[in-house]
């Protein structure tokens, strides 16, 4: 009843008074301002996930926007028992994979991606030489991009988005045990690439 009133008045209470389910209920009823709150909440995470997949700033911005628009178009079918980002993530992932398939490119060299997009936290004393740091960044970026989609995906979610095991499990719809074993294999592959296959 309260929700219906809110929709009629096109009034959105402050974010803190609405939890995600309430906001999504408003979105399902066609309230675009409520959807803007959802976009604002997840846009940065969406961008980072997309960037992790496509390694292209502009494409990541476009693809994550497209995914938000597609998610809104089918929001009426949205199941309120799942989290929005889980639903959104599937759309975004498909768009990113389609983009890569279409462009026939999986990796971009570090020099193309540029320091504007990836930064190294600079208070690191162990790598005194600036060039050594850049070389390390390059190596790691290259190694991550050499991973196949499934292993790269989990590294992106864990290392660059800081998601917990349970969050990753929910997002990928896999058990936590699978998250851990997939992470193990991804890290093992990274280790192998970084050490030049000498394992």
């Amino acid at each position, binding site marked *: 009843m309260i929700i219906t009133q809110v929709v009629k008045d096109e009034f959105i209470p402050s974010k803190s008074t609405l939890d995600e389910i309430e906001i999504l209920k408003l979105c399902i009823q066609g309230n675009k301002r409520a959807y803007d709150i959802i976009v604002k909440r997840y846009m940065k995470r969406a961008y980072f996930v997309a960037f992790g997949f496509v390694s292209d700033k502009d494409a990541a911005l476009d693809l994550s926007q497209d995914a938000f628009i597609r998610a809104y178009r089918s929001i009426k079918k949205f199941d309120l028992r799942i989290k929005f980002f889980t639903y959104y993530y599937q759309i975004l992932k498909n768009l990113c994979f389609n983009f890569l398939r279409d462009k026939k490119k999986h990796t971009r060299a570090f020099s193309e991606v540029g320091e504007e997009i990836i930064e190294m936290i600079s208070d690191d004393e162990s790598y005194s030489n600036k060039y050594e740091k850049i070389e390390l960044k390059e190596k790691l970026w290259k190694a991550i991009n050499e991973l196949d989609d499934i292993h790269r995906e989990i590294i992106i979610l864990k290392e660059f988005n800081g998601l917990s095991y349970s969050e990753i499990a929910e997002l990928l719809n896999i058990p936590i045990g699978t998250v851990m074993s997939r*992470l193990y294999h991804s*890290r093992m592959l990274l280790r192998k690439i970084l050490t030049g296959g000498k394992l």
Partner: protein
Amino acid sequence: MNAMQNKISKERFNILCMKALDNEFNSDNEILEFQEYIKKIPEFKIEYEEFKRIKELTKKMNLRSPNDDIWKVYRMKIMNRIERSIAWIIFLAGCAIILAFGGYKAIEALLNNTRIDLILKIGIIATLSGGLFLLLSVIKEKITLWKSDPYKGIEK
């Protein structure tokens, strides 16, 4: 039996190793179990140390967020495109109504026109009806194909 036990303990170690790296231990027992592995099996310790180095390296590497102006435009673009798609639906619905009404009026005028021969009226109506059925048939086919197309999500 020994090989199988080794395999099990390696698999268990892999899980504990990930939990140690990501600070995801569920209990103190798990921490003790992990420490026990590290102490007893040197290869496991080496593996853990190497994973730790990679983890530290990725921790130091951050994806930089675009500036605030970009985010403002980003949200605006999404909202505009959503609004536009609704506007397109309304526009197309309007076009359909106008075309249907116009078509109805044109046929009505044709039938009421006494200066045109009946045979010509039949010819015109048959041509238009045939064209309309052909168009509807093509649209129907396209929709059916699109619905069952497993690659419809792939942008060409």
